[in-house]
């Protein structure tokens, strides 16, 4: 089940972080921060390899005993990271891609909101509700 979803902005500032268990939020902030390095490494790696199809989905970033992190970067350099429990092996790759697609769509909709300036922390309620639903639905599917 997805334990935490985070958005990191262009200048690597945190835009949004939501976890199922609010008391673990600080720990996930640290994990998100370390994921920034992994994301940049993946980007440079895929630039060097020069493959023709360059995807926005970056795949598995980091795997440890407790958590696994998956990354996604948009063309406007906004990074999305999903952290899941290592004990859960039921969330498949295409399910994760689907979650990323929904998150990307939600972010794009948010940018059209005149009360949101890109680069600021995200405070829109409709966005938070959507992310909460995604977290809940991914945990109930496992």
């Amino acid at each position, binding site marked *: 089940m997805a334990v935490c979803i985070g958005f990191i902005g262009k200048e690597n500032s945190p835009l949004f972080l939501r976890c199922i268990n609010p008391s673990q939020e600080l720990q996930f902030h640290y994990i998100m921060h370390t994921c920034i390095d992994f994301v940049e490494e993946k980007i440079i790696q*895929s630039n060097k390899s020069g493959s023709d*199809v360059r995807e926005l989905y970056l795949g598995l970033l980091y795997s440890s005993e407790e958590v696994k992190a998956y990354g996604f970067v948009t063309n*406007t350099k906004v990074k999305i990271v999903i952290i899941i429990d290592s004990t859960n092996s039921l969330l498949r790759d295409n399910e994760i891609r689907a979650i990323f697609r929904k998150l990307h769509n939600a972010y794009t909709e948010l940018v059209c909101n005149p009360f949101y300036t890109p680069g600021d922390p995200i405070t829109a309620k409709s966005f938070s509700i959507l992310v909460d639903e995604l977290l809940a639905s991914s945990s109930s599917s496992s």
Partner: protein
Amino acid sequence: MADDALFDFLHMEIVSQVTKSDPGSLQDGVTMSKLEQIGYSTGYRFIERLTKDLSRFKDELEVMKAICKDFWSAVFKKQVDNLRTNHQGVYVLQDNKFRFLASISNSRQYLELAPKYLVFTCGLLRGALASLGLTCIVTAEVTTMPACKFQVHLQRA
């Protein structure tokens, strides 16, 4: 088709409202930068929707090409006619039948008043490139209507 004309009319009104509200001698500087700022915010947000389904860009040349094709077609219903670069951060986008100028004239008539109608698009370009991570300065020039050139100077960090 009525939908296309809506954007043309809206743009015309924005230009006339912004230039009307500042009739003083500082008119050119302040009003032009207001127009440019409107374009900047629009471009910044618009590019988020546009690049949602495109694959990741490798380098700035790819970004400029995408601007010339996808961005220009989405906004102006046509592609940029000519893209030139000196490979050192300066790009020139040439549009031979610029949408906002096409309805003004075909010759040198109204030439002095034409730049006002290019400012919004300069801002649009600057905002789009800023959102994609490229800071730049965009200027425009028009010698014969309805063709115009946009010069993009990328600032290297």
